[in-house]
């Protein structure tokens, strides 16, 4: 049985603190992989000031837990941690952190990679990107999953 923790955070996500906690809790695992995702200050549209992640209280938490449980079923992992922001996330802040501990390095890599691909398209979150274009106008766009996100997801269910 893998130890699974999932967190939906309305306040700052501190990947460094989560990493420290995860590594301390898994001192017997041979391999530990982590991923941290941060809001970049530029996008194809212009300078990004923040993202807003709409969420569905209850359903969003459950979607994170379901994705983590599927990863634990699929890969030989000893522990998984998934933390995702919701609400307003400013440029430069962390938006997502995942970590996987395993006896085997390949399983740890694959579990973290799989978690990220599924979170991107299957976590119950809706992302809006807010900022200023090169021409100085404001933008505020809903982000839909891209073809790349969909292709990434298909790698796991060919």
């Amino acid at each position, binding site marked *: 049985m893998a130890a699974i923790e999932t967190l939906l955070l309305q306040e700052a996500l501190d990947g460094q603190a989560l990493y420290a906690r995860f590594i301390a809790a898994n001192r017997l695992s041979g391999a530990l992989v982590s991923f941290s*995702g941060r809001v970049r200050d530029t996008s194809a549209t212009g300078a990004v000031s923040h993202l807003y*992640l*709409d*969420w*569905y209280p*209850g*359903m969003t938490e*459950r*979607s994170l837990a379901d994705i983590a449980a599927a990863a634990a079923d699929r890969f030989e992992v000893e522990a998984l941690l998934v933390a*995702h922001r919701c609400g307003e996330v400013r440029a430069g802040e962390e*938006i*997502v952190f995942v970590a996987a501990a395993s006896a085997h390095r390949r399983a740890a890599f694959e579990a973290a990679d799989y978690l*990220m691909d599924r*979170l*991107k*398209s*299957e*976590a*119950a*979150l*809706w*992302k*809006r990107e807010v900022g200023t274009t090169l021409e100085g106008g404001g933008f505020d766009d*809903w*982000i*839909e*999953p891209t073809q790349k*996100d969909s292709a990434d997801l298909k790698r796991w269910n060919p």
Partner: protein
Amino acid sequence: MTVDILFFGKVADKAGIRQLKMELSDTGGSLLALRDKALGTVFAAGGLDATQVQMSVNQVRVTGDMPLSDGDEVAFFSAFSGG
């Protein structure tokens, strides 16, 4: 006999509303009928059509039709985008 209706993401934005209560009797108790009624009224102003609207009933995603019961929580939303 009412259902609670919630809107999320682009759908909430376009609909200009996040929450609504509707009488089940108005839609014959079917999810798709409820969706089409909502599209015809709330969504029409935002220019959303059915292909852009995903659904859940009591926080479980549903893709086809299903009968609704008194007190069900129905949500309409756009495609997820996390990560």
